[in-house]
């Protein structure tokens, strides 16, 4: 059975696709220009939802990892892995879209801005997470290791953020906080984009869980 043999999944995917297209249209043609930032500002309609998705993904890793360690049911392990993978994809996209915006606005692609730095550290942490999944030995053991690492990493996030934030206080902070001051249309499109991106996350997560379950099935069959 493929992922798309379920009607619900197809419907969800189609709705998401339509909303993404509407969002793209709104961001290009409807969203008002913001003075000084011009076109560069529009990446925020993507950049912030991406960050939101990465955050949701990593919170998912924390929650699913704890449940997995308590119940030891492989379902939760698959959820944790799926959340980690999806979260890391979005994390990488933040790291790509951040510099694209920063280049025209700040004049250089990379600054040690707290959030960007935190994201980079997080990305490295989760690369390690996948490494331990890969090299951790037997399936059950590497799952346990990964669950513990997922918890350690999630606990580390606030500490990394505070440390990095005070480490480079001179670096400009993100300006999107005052985005809403410009026009109510900006906020409307922003929340629309946030909603769409959350749907994308749900699609990706469900698909990854489906694949994960198939992988586990195959693994169990090969053991029998």
């Amino acid at each position, binding site marked *: 059975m493929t992922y798309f043999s379920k009607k619900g999944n197809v419907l969800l995917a189609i709705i998401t696709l339509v909303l993404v297209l509407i969002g793209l249209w709104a961001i290009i043609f409807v969203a008002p220009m913001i003075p000084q930032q011009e076109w560069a500002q529009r990446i925020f309609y993507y950049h912030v939802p991406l960050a939101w998705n990465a955050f949701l993904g990593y919170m998912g890793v924390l929650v699913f990892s704890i449940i997995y*360690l308590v119940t030891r049911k492989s379902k939760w392990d698959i959820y944790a892995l799926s959340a980690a993978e999806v979260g890391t994809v979005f994390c990488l996209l933040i790291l790509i879209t951040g510099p694209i915006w920063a280049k025209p606005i700040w004049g250089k692609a990379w600054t040690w801005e707290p959030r960007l730095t935190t994201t980079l*550290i*997080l990305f*490295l*942490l989760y*690369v*390690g997470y996948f*490494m*331990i999944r890969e*090299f*951790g*030995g037997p399936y059950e*053991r*590497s799952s*346990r*290791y990964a*669950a*513990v*690492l997922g*918890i*350690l*990493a999630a*606990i*580390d996030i606030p*500490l*990394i953020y*505070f*440390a*990095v934030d*005070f*480490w480079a206080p001179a670096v400009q902070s993100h300006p999107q906080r005052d985005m809403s001051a410009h026009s109510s249309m900006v906020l409307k499109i922003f929340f629309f984009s946030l909603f769409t991106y959350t749907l994308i996350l749900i699609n990706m997560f469900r698909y990854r869980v489906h694949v994960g379950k198939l992988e586990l099935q195959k693994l169990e069959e090969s053991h029998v």
Partner: protein
Amino acid sequence: MTLLHLIKKEIRQEIRAKESIISMVVFGTSVILLFSFAFNATPAEFSRFLPGLMWMTFLFVSVLGLLRSFSAEKEMDAYAALLSSPVDRGSIYLGKLFAFWIFLLFAQLFTMPLFALFLNLNISAHFFTFMVLVLVTDWAIAAVGIMISGMGLRTRMGEVLVPVLMFPLLSPVLISATKVTHTIVSGSTLAGTNFWMMILFTFAVVFTATGYLTFGAISEE
């Protein structure tokens, strides 16, 4: 009581094998030597990046020590014997953590004077604060390090995984320790360091607690 036994066991093992501390001290010394060749800077220039260099050195040194910390257990499956003893897993973690903390401090006892001698590390202005800083930072490094090496060293790529997992996790510790050391070396007032000390303390406490709670999941067969 069991904790005391576990710590004693680790320390006795180290006294007999002398693997960790010797390799840590020798490695630390050679890195310091390389630093003074590689940078060839005046003392004034050095004071700017000395705190960062110092804590980086100790991070590398601790990785080296950690790689040894589970090696004895690997041989002849001593780890299985340790796990089958009637001790809870959290205590095994605390025992290893405490022992490694002592080893790291011991290694620093030898390498820290070299930083003063070769690279003009001057902590006389705030000696006491510096001691507290070293104690807390080492504890934080050990708390994460024992967890990571407990996982990493029983996998295929342990030697690679330990630093790869440890360094990003410890980034708040490195930042905080470097900031505080910077203030100490510059001899200025310590008012700004409270925040960093708080991060270090929080880190040490939180990760010790998490390690205590989750070490069981790591050490199962």
